[in-house]
């Protein structure tokens, strides 16, 4: 089942376990700031099961990281309001006590971040940090924990793990540091791995190594993976289902094939059209999305993409629900245009998919 289908079922009724590994329902996260209330995530739902990979794609400020930090319980603070449900193995994490959450975090759910240098402590040897992480969750003695750390460094492809355990993070290259982060994430056999832009800071050749490594380990351990990225190339390569987020909301959800070959939301068209590709000849102009993402302090009324959308009309002042409108079953979007209009409007003059310039639309 796709993340999309789960969203469709999400109703305001009380939580009923569906047997999914992770199910996020109608999550809303608000931060009280000096400038007012900032709604980082609005009514966001997704789910992922063991062995599946869900991609979440969006630009900076789209709420993709906040939603997943909230799953890990890392946004809890007095000035944060969280609504909705986060069911992990049938248990609502939002209702879990901090100590319960601390047990789940790093044990059942692990997370890797974009910047492996700031995620490792610069003062402690890599081995010390790994052994601590094992001992926090398993009753192993130091030798046992060390053995576990060695095995994992070996598993993620770090040569000479014995010597590497005695080194500090700065002695590792970017790609090697990310491997250490992955090894640390796997120390306690997590059921779910949340990867937040794990390859963004890496060169393409190293990115290819890391993506391949995550895919291999996922298969070996039957993990669920949430891959958060801004790169549609990474989405196409590693995920099966994908959610597109914009201004804190999921605007389109479906399988990768549905998103790439039959995109329903104008923001998705804009994203696809603004990509430069290594396999496409230089063409005249990229189809760009005009303007900038809206402020989350004062989000626009109705559809969040309305101010930038060349196809917006009166009805767009009302927020469209995320539901099935066109395309295959399970493919959801938040756009009032009719499926026929979408088929026509998303095609540019050269036959590719993109967002038209406002003047071409004649608005």
């Amino acid at each position: 089942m796709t993340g999309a289908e789960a969203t469709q079922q999400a109703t305001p009724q009380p939580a009923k376990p569906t047997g999914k590994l992770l199910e996020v329902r109608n999550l809303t996260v608000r931060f009280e700031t000096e400038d007012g209330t900032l709604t980082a995530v609005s009514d966001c739902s997704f789910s992922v099961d063991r062995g599946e990979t869900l991609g979440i794609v969006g630009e900076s400020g789209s709420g993709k990281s906040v939603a997943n930090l909230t799953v890990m319980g890392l946004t809890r603070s007095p000035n944060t309001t969280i609504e909705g449900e986060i069911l992990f193995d049938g248990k609502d994490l939002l209702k879990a006590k901090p100590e319960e959450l601390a047990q789940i975090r790093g044990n059942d759910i692990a997370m890797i971040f974009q910047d492996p240098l700031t995620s490792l402590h610069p003062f402690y040897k890599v081995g010390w940090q790994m052994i601590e992480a094992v001992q926090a969750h398993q009753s192993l003695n130091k030798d046992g924990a060390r053995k576990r750390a060695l095995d994992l460094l070996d598993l993620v492809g770090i040569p000479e793990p014995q010597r590497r355990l005695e080194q500090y993070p700065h002695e590792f290259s970017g790609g090697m540091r990310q491997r250490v982060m992955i090894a640390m994430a796997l120390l306690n056999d997590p059921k779910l791995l949340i990867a937040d832009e794990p390859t963004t800071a890496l060169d393409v050749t190293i990115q290819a190594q890391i993506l391949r490594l995550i895919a291999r380990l996922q298969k070996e351990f039957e993990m669920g993976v949430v891959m958060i990225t801004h790169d549609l190339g990474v989405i196409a390569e590693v995920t099966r289902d994908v959610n597109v987020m914009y201004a804190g909301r999921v605007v389109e959800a479906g399988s990768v094939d549905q998103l790439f070959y039959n995109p329903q939301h104008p923001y998705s068209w804009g994203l696809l059209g603004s990509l430069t590709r290594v396999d496409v000849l230089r063409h005249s102009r990229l189809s760009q999305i005009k303007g900038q993402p809206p402020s989350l302090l004062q989000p626009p009324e109705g559809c969040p993409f309305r101010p930038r959308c060349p196809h917006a009309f009166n009805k767009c002042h009302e927020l469209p629900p995320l539901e099935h409108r066109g395309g295959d079953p399970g493919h959801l979007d938040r756009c009032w245009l009719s499926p026929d209009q979408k088929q026509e409007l998303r095609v540019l003059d050269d036959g590719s998919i993109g967002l038209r310039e406002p003047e071409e639309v004649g608005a």
Partner: protein
Amino acid sequence: MGSAEGTGRPLLEVNNLVKYFPIKSGILIDRQVGAVQAVDDVSFTVHEGETVGLVGESGCGKSTLCRAILQLIEPTSGSVKFDGRELVGLRSRELRPIRREMQMIFQDPYASLNPRKRVGEIVGDPIQLNGIASGKGLRTQVQDLLERVGLSAEHFNRYPHEFSGGQRQRIGIARALALRPRLIIADEPVSALDVSIQAQIINLLEDLQSEFNLTYVFVAHDLGVVRHVSDRIAVMYLGKIAEIGDADAVYENPVHPYTLSLLSAVPIPDPRENSSRKPIILEGDLPSPANPPPACRFHTRCPYATEICSTEEPPLIPHSSNQIAACHHPLNKEHPEAVAAALPHSQVNST
């Protein structure tokens, strides 16, 4: 049309450019114990009106090369000619009039603008310092520039922190344009920006190029962006040029195995294309430029390396009508099947 040498009048000629950074040791007396060979014997030519893309992994010397071209750092040896005039060895006063014609756009739109200056000063200071305009004339000139890059005249009195990343990059572009340069070196100008904003900036740079007949050296690690903007591409590895040639030739029929592995490592935003190719995944990391492998610097990671690659340095020579490369085992002659399998099919078919 279409040769490894490019077309048109040469505007920038780089010959055997070398930049080593000494590694020093010792407390009282500095002893040089080695050198980081950041740029080692690089030669290429950029012709008027074209865009040359420069790609390579981090640490391969792309940024050092840019800085050495602009004489922001002093090259160890070699020559840089701009419009026929030698720049290496000129004193800063002699360089000043030439600097007006060569400008740079930086990667980080947050770090490259002075937070304590207003936009009007950031863009206007170069104009004023060069005595081109002042007072009211300066203000109109700056406001025209701001409008040209997609900002508005009212932004004149604002500070950089009031702008988003994409808008800041527009300010940086306006500053680079202020002196009507002929050559712009753009060092990763869009890599800090979101995809939709990237497209806006790339479109803007292309519009400005045709409007002002600009010549670009465009540095990026995103191979898709580089393909989109470039007429010719130079691929660097550990301070040396591995391959240089027409953009389409380099992307569709790469000669150097490093070029192929870079290209095949880029995930294609198309699930079917992605699953239909067999990428070459390089093992290991980039070796240290302080201690580069002997002979062919790529031989330690190259899937096709043989003995000669570790004993003899391959010369940078033509391998097709529009590509030159430094390789003992050029893919177009020895491994054409690897190219066909590793690159997306649309690409191979389109040639």
